[in-house]
């Protein structure tokens, strides 16, 4: 079994009187796909927002294991979490719609290019080292465009792409930021069965070839069960089950949460 990449320990998030995430602990491993599932409003996206620094958790620890050091994500701002290698996508796609597909992927490599351009000064002078870095960035973008099958649309505005292409572009953009943990918020939402099967294959490929961890929120059970190594089930902010997909499929608590309890009135 691969090493723990992210350890979530007793994470809680409260908004006033509402507890969206309650005492949640789980581990996401490197080179593995960890899925978080649960009914609507279970707190899945809140976990993501805590993890990527968009919310500050009310309690608990989020430890990211980097090469040799552990980072306490709960103390970092969103920008620094992204720089540390936790990059996310959004449930409602957030591309830069007016910019071209290629530009979207170049923007994702901002911090690398910023250093290469000596914080703009070297870039203004047209340094060779910056031009080389930009070429490398374009090549990385080309690589990901080919992986997600958007190479033909490279120079078109991202906002003009069909919905499924936008979903894949957002994943490509996140990968261009060279994450060690890729967090995907419902990547298969709104996709037809063929597209979501392709997406599942792509995610499995990314996990195997790039050797990174993937954390996945998903409602499409076929995708989840096909590709996940580990599944965490949330309901009302609590973890109700955890395990390999096959175990989850047959878990009584999970079935109850998804299908609902047969209530007293019906039983009578």
């Amino acid at each position, binding site marked *: 079994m691969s090493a723990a990449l992210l350890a979530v320990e007793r994470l809680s998030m409260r908004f006033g009187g509402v507890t969206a995430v309650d005492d949640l602990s789980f581990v996401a491993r490197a080179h593995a796909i960890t899925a978080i599932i649960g009914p609507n409003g279970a707190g899945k996206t809140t976990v993501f927002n805590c993890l*990527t*620094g*968009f919310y500050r958790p009310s309690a608990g620890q989020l430890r990211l294991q980097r090469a040799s050091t552990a980072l306490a994500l709960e103390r970092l701002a*969103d*920008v*620094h979490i*992204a*720089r540390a290698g936790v*990059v*996310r*996508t*959004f449930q409602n796609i*957030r*591309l*830069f*719609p*007016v*910019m*071209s597909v*290629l*530009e979207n992927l*170049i*923007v*994702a490599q*901002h*911090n690398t*290019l*910023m250093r290469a*351009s000596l914080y*703009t000064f070297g*870039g*203004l002078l047209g340094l060779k080292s910056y031009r080389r870095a*930009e070429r490398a960035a*374009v090549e990385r*973008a*080309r690589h990901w*465009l080919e992986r997600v099958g958007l*190479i033909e649309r*490279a*120079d078109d*505005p991202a906002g003009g792409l069909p919905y499924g292409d936008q979903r894949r572009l957002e994943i490509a*953009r*996140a990968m261009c*930021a060279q994450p060690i943990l890729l967090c995907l918020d419902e990547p298969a939402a709104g996709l037809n069965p063929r597209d979501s099967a392709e997406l599942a294959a792509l995610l499995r490929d990314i996990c195997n070839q790039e050797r990174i961890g993937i954390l996945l929120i998903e409602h499409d059970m076929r995708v989840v069960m096909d590709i996940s190594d580990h599944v965490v089930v949330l309901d009302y902010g609590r973890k109700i089950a955890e395990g390999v997909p096959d175990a989850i499929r047959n878990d009584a608590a999970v079935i109850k949460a998804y299908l609902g309890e047969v209530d007293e009135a019906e039983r009578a």
Partner: protein
Amino acid sequence: MTATAARKIPPWSARFKEALLAAVVAGVLAIPLIGLHAVDGAQGLGIDTRFGVVAIGASFVFVGRLLLSGIQQFRFANPFQPLAHGAARLRPLTRLLPWIGIGFAIALPFLPFANRYVIDVATTVLIYVMLGWGLNIVVGLAGLLDLGYVAFYAVGAYSYALLAINFDLSFWECLPLAGVFAGFMGVLLGFPVLRLRGDYLAIVTLGFGEIVRIILTNWQTLTGGPNGITGIPRPTFFGAPLTANPAEGVAAFHQLFGLEFSPIHRVMFLYFLILALALITNLFTLRIRRLPIGRAWEALREDEIACRALGISPRNTKLTAFGIGAMFGGFAGAFFATRQGFISPESFTFIESATIVAIVVLGGMGSQMGVVLAAAVLVLLPEFGREFAQYRMLVFGAAMVLIVAWRPQGLLAHREPTLRLPKKEAPS
């Protein structure tokens, strides 16, 4: 309710009702504005009524509204529209246009119809072009609506005036300092407004512009208050003054080149100076747009949350946009001070900020050629309209409304990607 349904011409009864409503509203609004009229009577100031004029105005509104609602399909027969759709076909022209423009700008002072007045007006146009290009970085690229841009223009102008008078520095020494001061003010303004966006940002920056103007008016000991600063040194041609009688031992421009002295030399020199400054601004913007920071500005305009998720710091990105935009405002301000020889807070009122924002918005946010076109229109329109000086604002407003109705994206809004995917290199 779809957009196409909304565009259909409504039935006569609905149009009639709508026109009637518009006429009533116009009539009520017009009563205090037009209907009441102060007259100089025997017992001092009296009030006269002109309800007839109000009625005429309201009936004009009625007829106009009735006609307008009938021709609403003019959105389809838009004279500007082919420009957007035929952008690909027009590409050779749009490539050539900037060069034609620069060529014309350089040749302008030597053309037969160029006199002092023409060059003066052209200089004013170029000041606004430069301010528009500077603000375009903040508004067009970074998407931060800054209604107080004139503050940086003022900081640049006062920096030059005070440095030149108190420390006897030349224009060329002051110019970078004016830019630095203005850029510093830009960053200073940027800090408190980091979390604001949209309307709130606009209001705070508007307030900032007014604060700077009021400080300039009230800090008598430094700025001379409402009297302003006079006797600001004129620029020199790299040390050679452009005057008829230079000081002892200094060769003036006309002596240096063996020309007959003519006051037009200075006007032409100022014109070329602002042309050079404006072109530098443009070159800088075109270049920085292709650098990571420029792309980050545009990404920030598109989606700040996505930027944060990719590790792009909104703080640094916004502050650099404010700072660099303000710096060019400062350069333009220094030029303004040396051209006028006199500055006062009067020159830096809100209407200036509004004009510059209008130039950027009318031109098409982020479009460099659009700024030139809009600046030319906004400066030249009042010049041509001098005979109807009373109606200048009316025409100005009407032009704005027409452009917003026809081309809400601006006169020339066509975005070229900052880089294209190069052809795959042959495997080596």
